[in-house]
C-alpha cells in the first residue's frame, strides 16, 4: 500500500499537470476563436466562388481547358496539411494514418510524391518510403495567402509541365468543434462542374474569353488551397481545445480518486492508533 507521503506527492503533481492543461486550454480557446472567426468570415467566398466557376465554365464552353481535363494518373502529388505542434488529441495521428493508406493505395497504380505542411507530418513521412518534394514546417500557422499562393503556383507548374497528372490535398476539415473530418480533395485538375443550364443571354468578356479563363482558374486553385489550409488551422485549434479539456477533466478525476484513497489510509491509521490507545487503556484499567 502506498504511504501517505507518496499519495500526497502524487496528488500535488497531478494538480500541477492540471494547472498546465487548464492554461493550455485557455490559450487554445483564444486561438480557436480567432481562427473560427477567420473561417466564418471567409465563408462567403467559398459559397460564392464555386458558383462563379460553374458559370464561367458553362459560358466559356471551356470543358476541355487543360486545368479541367482528367489525365491518366501516372504521377500524382499528395499534399498533406498537418500541424507543427502536438497535444491536440488524434488530430495528426488520424490524418497521417488515413493519408498513408490513401497514398499506399495510389502507389499501386502511380508514382506518388509528397508535399508536406507541418512538422508532425514531416517527421512521420520521413520514415516512410515516399519521396518528399517539398516540406514546410515551423510556424506554418503564420503562413499568409501569398505563401500559399507560391505553393499552389508550384503545384500548378508541375501539372502544366506534365510532371504530375493530379494533385490531391488531405486535410482536417473543420465541421464542428467535436469532430474534425478528414477530407481528401482533388485540387488539380478541377472537377468540371456538372452540366448546368445557366439562364440568360451570352455574357461579354473583358479582355477576352481565353484570357479571362486563363487568369481565373489558377486563382481559383490558389484560393481553394488557402481555404483548405484555414479549415485545417481552425480544426487544429478545436482539437487542441478538446484534448486539453479532456486532460483537465481526467486530472480532476484522478485527483478525486487519489484523495479518496488518501483519506481512507488516513482514517485507517487513525482508527489503528485509537484502537491501540483503547487497548492500552483497557489493559491498564483491568489491572
Amino acid at each position, binding site marked *: 500500500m502506498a504511504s501517505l507521503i507518496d499519495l500526497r506527492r502524487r496528488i500535488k503533481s497531478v494538480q500541477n499537470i492540471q494547472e498546465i492543461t487548464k492554461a493550455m486550454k485557455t490559450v487554445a480557446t483564444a486561438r480557436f476563436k480567432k481562427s473560427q472567426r477567420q473561417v466564418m468570415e471567409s465563408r*462567403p*467566398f467559398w459559397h460564392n466562388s464555386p458558383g462563379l466557376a460553374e458559370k464561367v465554365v458553362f459560358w466559356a464552353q471551356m470543358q476541355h481547358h487543360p486545368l479541367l481535363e482528367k489525365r491518366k494518373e501516372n504521377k500524382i502529388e499528395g499534399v498533406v496539411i498537418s500541424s507543427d505542434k502536438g497535444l491536440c488529441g488524434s488530430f495528426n495521428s488520424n490524418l497521417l494514418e488515413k493519408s498513408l493508406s490513401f497514398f499506399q493505395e495510389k502507389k499501386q497504380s502511380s508514382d506518388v510524391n509528397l508535399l508536406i505542411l507541418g512538422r508532425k507530418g514531416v517527421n512521420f513521412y520521413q520514415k516512410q518510403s515516399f519521396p518528399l518534394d517539398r516540406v514546410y514546417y515551423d510556424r506554418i500557422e503564420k503562413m499568409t*495567402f501569398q505563401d500559399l499562393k507560391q505553393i499552389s503556383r508550384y503545384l500548378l507548374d508541375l501539372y502544366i509541365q506534365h510532371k504530375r497528372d493530379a494533385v490531391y490535398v488531405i486535410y482536417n476539415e473543420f465541421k464542428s468543434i467535436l469532430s474534425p473530418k478528414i477530407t481528401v480533395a482533388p485540387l488539380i485538375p478541377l472537377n468540371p462542374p456538372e452540366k448546368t443550364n445557366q439562364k*440568360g443571354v451570352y*455574357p*461579354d468578356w473583358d*479582355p477576352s474569353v481565353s484570357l479571362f479563363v486563363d*487568369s481565373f482558374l489558377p486563382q481559383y486553385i490558389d*484560393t481553394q488551397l488557402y481555404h483548405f489550409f484555414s479549415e485545417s488551422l481552425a480544426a487544429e485549434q478545436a482539437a487542441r481545445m478538446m484534448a486539453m479539456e479532456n486532460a483537465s477533466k481526467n486530472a480532476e478525476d484522478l485527483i478525486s480518486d487519489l484523495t479518496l484513497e488518501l483519506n481512507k489510509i488516513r482514517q485507517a491509521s487513525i482508527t489503528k492508533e485509537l484502537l491501540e490507545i483503547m487497548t492500552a487503556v483497557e489493559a491498564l484499567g483491568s489491572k
Partner: protein
Amino acid sequence: MSEKLPDSIRLKVITPRKLLVDEEVKEVTLPDPDRCLGILPGHRPLFVALGKGTLSYRIQRKKEKYSVRGGHADIGPQKVEVFTELAEDETG
C-alpha cells in the same frame, strides 16, 4: 427593350479573408487592366478580369473607395460580384 431598368445594383466585394462590401449602390467603378470601367444598373452580363487599381462605388452622395489587386468580377443587370485577391481599406 421596354423593360424598366433597375435603379440600383447589389454590390458584393468578396475577398478570401472576408465579405468586404454587401450593399445596394447606384454606380460602381472597376479597375480594368488598362482603364476604368463604370457600371450602372441594368448592365448586360459581363465577366471582367480586374487589374490593379481603385474600386469605387456610390450610394446616393456617398462615395467609397478600395484599392484592389487583381481579381474577377461577375456583372449582371442588378448585381456586381467582385472576387478580389487582396483589397486594402483605403480609408482605414
